[in-house]
């Protein structure tokens, strides 16, 4: 049932138009990318602050700084990168309206992101300086905090999505949201890589 046009006027009938769309046709797609623009600006400003503070120092990081073990931090990176593969299946399957690969993709993706949360927790526990030790400690902990915040909230989001996908019923119009969840998760993954390189390898 839908409205009908008033008599005696020309009209544009939109009753047959679909109730959702993928990609930039979808307002939520814009919402997500704007959110990522905001988040990216924050990350860029943190990076700028890092290099601004670095410019004041002759030795960087300050003497006596011990990072978390490289293998441990690399494990987090590996877990993050691995999570991209199943979420990519889900991303591709969503536009084909195939539920099974989406379910599996999100289940595995959530497991990988949960693994990254665990190794991140160990990373944080083994960092050999505090946020109040010096400005270096403050900015690196701020970067860690920001990313860990995204990491945990992204993992929770993936987990909730997985539950919903297995519980059902699943509407077709959830499919664009599936793809957007994947993009958000990839942002969490990709945004860490430059920070990881800088924290682990930037020395003067």
């Amino acid at each position, binding site marked *: 049932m839908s409205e009908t046009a008033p008599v005696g006027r020309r009209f544009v009938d939109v009753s047959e*138009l*679909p109730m959702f769309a993928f990609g930039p046709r979808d307002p939520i797609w814009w919402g997500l990318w704007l959110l990522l623009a905001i988040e990216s600006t*924050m990350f860029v400003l943190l990076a700028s602050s890092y290099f601004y503070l670095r410019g*004041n120092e002759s030795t960087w990081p300050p003497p006596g700084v011990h990072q978390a073990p490289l293998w441990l931090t690399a494990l987090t990176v590996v877990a993050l990168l691995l999570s991209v593969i199943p979420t990519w299946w889900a991303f591709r399957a969503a536009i084909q309206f195939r539920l099974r690969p989406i379910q599996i993709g999100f289940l595995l993706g959530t497991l990988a992101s949960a693994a990254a949360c665990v190794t991140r927790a160990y990373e944080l526990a083994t960092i050999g300086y505090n946020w109040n030790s010096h400005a270096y400690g403050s900015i690196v902990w701020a970067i860690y905090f920001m990313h860990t915040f995204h990491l945990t909230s992204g993992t929770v989001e993936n987990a909730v999505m997985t539950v919903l996908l297995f519980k059902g019923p699943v509407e*077709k119009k959830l499919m664009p949201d599936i793809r957007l969840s994947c993009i958000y998760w990839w942002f969490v993954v990709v945004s860490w890589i430059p920070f990881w390189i800088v924290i682990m390898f930037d020395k003067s």
Partner: protein
Amino acid sequence: MIDLELHVQLAETWRKPRGLWGWLTDNHHTTIGMNFIVTSFVFFLLGGIEAILMRTQLARPENHFVTNDFYNQLFTTHGSTMMFLFAVPMIEGLGIYIVPLMLGTRQMSFPRLNQFSYFSYLIGGLLLYAGFFLNFGPDAGWFSYVPLSGPEFAPGKRIDIWAQMITFTEIGSLGGAVSMIATIFKHRAPGMSLNRMPLFVWGELVTSFMIVFAMPAVMVASSMLASDRLIATQFFNKAEGGDVLLWQHLFWFFGHPEVYIIFIPGTTMMSTLVSAFTKRPVFGYVGMVLSLVATAFVGFGVWVHHMFATGLPELGLSFFTASSVLITIPTAFQVFSWIITIFHGKFIVRTPMLYVLGFLFIFVMGGLSGVMLASTPLDWQLHDTFFVVAHLHYVLIGGMLFPLIGALTYWFPKFTGKMMNETLGRWTFAFFFVGFNLTFFPMHNLGLHGMPRRVYTYLPTMGWNNLNMLSTVGAYVLGVGVLLFMANAVISLRSGAIAGDNPWGSFSLEWFTSSPPPPYNFLYLPTTRDRYEIWTMADDQPLVTGFRPDRREVLITKLMDAFPDHKIETPRPTIWPTLLAGATGIGVITAIFTPWGVPLGMLLAGIALTGWFWPKPPHHELLEEQP
């Protein structure tokens, strides 16, 4: 289905919940927009009262009307209120109310995000004033420079209140901006391609993009300040490798775009009023749009001109002087375009048009003193004097408040269905214009005579007595103007002339529906075929039909040409976004006292978010495969 039946069904579907519960749960853009407008106007009054108190203190030398400590709280709260709690929320609220109507749609893209934004903003404002009324309001100025605002020189919780207020209001601004951009891109009436959008919509679009890239800077900065104060991080502590100028860079990377965030919508209100009251399109539409975009871009490259006195390298100073002066080009283009339009069009002198003239005079003055201050040697002389106070008020009151009062007078009939009283309106303008210039013009001279800003008193021998007294008298005259405006609003609301749909014979689509608009905005959504939609409509301009009247369906159109693409169903009233704002509020306010507020806030926000996004019983097409 005949019109009456459709009206009844749509009115039921889009019915606004009433009472306190309605206020907490409604997400309709007119409700949220009006919430923003009314709340920010209340904060404007509070900020104005603070200004009056300050001027009363400064009226005479060695005055003891208020204490030095209270004076510090006054100017800090006044500045913070006007920037964070009045100007930006007012612009967003006006946009949230008007833009969807101008676009010919029934709702914005993310209504619940708007609702969340409003309540975040409200909590932030209440937090600031809770501190202020308990006499521990922030006292380090609206830009809270470290080290003055750092843990060493500002013990207690005053600055923490300021920092967390920033977090709230910026969350609110960012949410509103995202919603605004998506709405402008995707909700336009069929036929309203990007190059036909009303200039006011362009202004809100450009402003929203600026918010997206500017506000994160102040959130990062205020978070650093809060953590320096709460958990002893060392961002701004020189002894441990921190840097006080980092604060200034981060703050002004937000702070200068903030000025344009406030003033770009002001210029597009100008364009709206100029067209409506000259009955012709504003000269140079494309140039006007490009001016807005150029102002936004250049606006991100001038922040260091607030820091000329900090001992930066000379090359940097020259660069930022040049970029600051560059701003005059797009601005002058706009000013000349308005003048040409007025010169060639009819000249209908109604109250809003008076504010247009007032703007032209005051804003150009503010712009010229800005060019003066952009020159480094002069800035060194005038830095932190009353000259700067005069300049910034000429730009912001001229650039934003005058167009705003004009625009509120212009849109009052749309909001309420009643016209504002014209005679009272003219008197209001007279008090505004005279009071404003009387208050702020003498401050130029005070600054040139060396009176520093933010001093609570001065010696009688300084030669500043008469100009200060003049300025104080002006502030009271301006205050009378504000009272007259409010009296006019109340009287007109009760007994004003009935407005009708389009009392000004204006051009954009908000005038294509009744005043005030019904909850579904348009019985049939309009289509357009050119700029200045109503003026250029064909006699048999098609309408849009085919929505389910029992659901809150909204038409989504293509980004560039606004061709009908698909529909979405927008949410009905819900409490979750308000609860999320409350959850964030509990977390952030707790974080003033203990870092455990952060995990607490995350936990509560997680619960609220899950409630928000938990799927409703399905009523759309299901996937063929099901679990």
